């Protein structure tokens, strides 16, 4: 994405040409992330939007190098605070993970240890990273729980994860992620499992933490409503590629890719009894991603070049707005007029 990588000195994270493949049972390699590039500025929130199978979570795991076999990163750069994380040895990488980059998942029980109290887990993080120990760590743990708006933090610190509600667990995980004062927080569907009123509280909290901790946020979600509320810029992913990038205002006002337009149109919000606008077909499975534009088989606007080669990223009107679609870029060889 040519104009996204013209990032300024204020860039915290810059991903370039990232490619992560998975070995299929038949021995072939299939790219779950295929040439993904974007950057996150300091203090900025970038939304990474996509449906299941779009590669958004694999992108996040690739950044912190937690892709498990049969997956592996085969190309690209992940520049973070001046270093290429993909070339780092395991030990310094561990310092980055958890310390400089915090993580929040959809399912908090995956990140919390069920047999230790919340307070213990936060203190442990503080000690491991050499930030505080003893009484100071105890005090800091309570402060962190307070910062994520856990009511009665001193008492809650003594509780185990199963004693907390879903919303409180999500907050506890955030406190844990923030303990080491990371500069980047990667949040993967942080509110998907939550009720809408709890989601609203957690989103408000994330927005506030961004300010108080000076955090940058990489927000991964399938929910365009969450993106509209939270993100400064948005990358839309489909079948392993970023198909559109824009400021949040441009994306909602003038979506350029037929997939983005379809997604926005398929969200209910009309009058009672009206049909929804549906995108036909389904997201292609890994290993069955079509040649050319992966969205072409579902696209109402497709024409000859679409299934020949993957369209290049092309700028369109707007601030850093670009799109991978032949409606906006010149087709490679065969053109519309050739038929």
């Amino acid at each position, binding site marked *: 994405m040519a104009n996204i990588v013209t990032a300024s000195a204020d860039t915290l994270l810059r991903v370039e040409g990232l490619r992560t493949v998975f070995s299929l049972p038949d021995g072939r390699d299939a790219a779950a992330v295929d040439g993904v590039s974007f950057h996150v500025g300091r203090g900025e929130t970038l939304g990474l939007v996509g449906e299941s199978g779009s590669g958004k979570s694999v992108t996040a795991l690739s950044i912190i190098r937690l892709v498990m076999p049969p997956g592996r990163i085969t190309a690209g750069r992940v520049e973070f605070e001046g270093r290429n994380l993909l070339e780092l040895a395991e030990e310094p990488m561990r310092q980055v993970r958890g310390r400089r980059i915090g993580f929040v998942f959809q399912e908090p029980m995956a990140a919390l240890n069920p047999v230790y109290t919340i307070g213990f887990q936060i203190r442990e993080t503080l000690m491991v990273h050499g930030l505080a120990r003893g009484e100071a760590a105890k005090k800091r743990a309570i402060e962190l729980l307070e910062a994520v708006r856990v009511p009665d933090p001193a008492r809650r610190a003594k509780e185990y994860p199963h004693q907390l509600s879903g919303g409180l667990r999500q907050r506890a995980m955030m406190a844990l992620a923030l303990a080491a004062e990371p500069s980047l927080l990667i949040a993967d569907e942080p509110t998907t499992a939550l009720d*809408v009123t709890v989601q609203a509280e957690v989103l408000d909290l994330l927005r506030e933490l961004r300010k108080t901790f000076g955090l940058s946020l990489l927000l991964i979600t399938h929910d365009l409503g969450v993106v509209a*509320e939270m993100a400064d810029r948005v990358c839309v992913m489909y079948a392993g590629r970023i198909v559109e990038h824009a400021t949040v205002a441009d994306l909602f006002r003038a979506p350029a890719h037929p997939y983005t337009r379809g997604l926005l149109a398929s969200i209910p919000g009309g009058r009672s009894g009206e049909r929804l606008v549906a995108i036909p077909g389904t997201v292609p499975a890994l290993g069955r991603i079509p040649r050319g534009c992966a969205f072409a088989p579902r696209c109402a606007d497709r024409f000859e070049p679409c299934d020949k080669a993957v369209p290049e990223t092309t700028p369109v009107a707007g601030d850093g707005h670009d799109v991978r679609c032949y409606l906006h870029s010149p087709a490679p060889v065969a053109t519309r007029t050739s038929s």
Partner: protein
Amino acid sequence: MTPLLQVRGLVKEFQARGGFFRKAAGVRAVDDVTFDVRPGETFGLVGESGSGKTTTGRCILRLIEPTAGEVMFKDLNVRALSASELRRARRHFQIVFQDPYSSLNPRMRVGATVREPLIIHKIGTRDTQQARVRELFELVGLDPAATEKYPHEFSGGQRQRIGLARALALEPSLIVCDEPVSALDVSVQAQVVNLLLDLQKRLGLTYLFIAHDLRLVRQICDRVAVMYRGRIVEIAPAEQLFASPAHDYTKALLSAIPHMDPGQRLPRIPFDGATFAPVGLRQVAEGHFAAV
């Protein structure tokens, strides 16, 4: 209009297991729930997790036994039915579940899954049953040649269509849709929702639509009941509920929906659960009732 379904004072108590420090105590998951569903309408039951909306749906079908209250389906007193009467009556009211991955038997060909209710209710011969299965597949937009496949060969959206075909096999008049699209991707959700709307028009179906997605409920429901802690706190025509909610909880719930217009964030209205008092519904406008 005579209601198709009348629910009166429905109660479901669960016996919470006594823990280390706690004595066993009753929890009212559904607490004095009363509403009507009219023939041909889509009646929405919304609420957050733990509000009792799913339990209400299951009590109506007697998939779980209610503790108290009355459920009338046309002139049938559902709670008074014996086990065999209930089995026979079930052909008139069916359910579509949320999770298309666990609601189909993975070891059964999907054609057999759809045919099963016809066998149980002894409807038709082997040949007419198989013809009916193919017809149902076509009705829900699936390839009738796919009846010999297994569930894992289908996507989530297709599995939900199979679940719907099975629910439709006995030509029910009421379908309880329990979060039928919430496990699906956004772009696939719309396909299944449209199918539900088309089928309703073609077959004159009535839906009890249980959901937490308020935007979706607004679009497809005629009337909506909002549940909180086992109780209905508000019932209104969908447009009216969204335009002028009367209960404080409804207001809070609606204000929490993410706004699809960046930069247009509306203020959240908080709701303090401690102030919640279980009072009865009263009419606040034509057809609009609230516990205020």
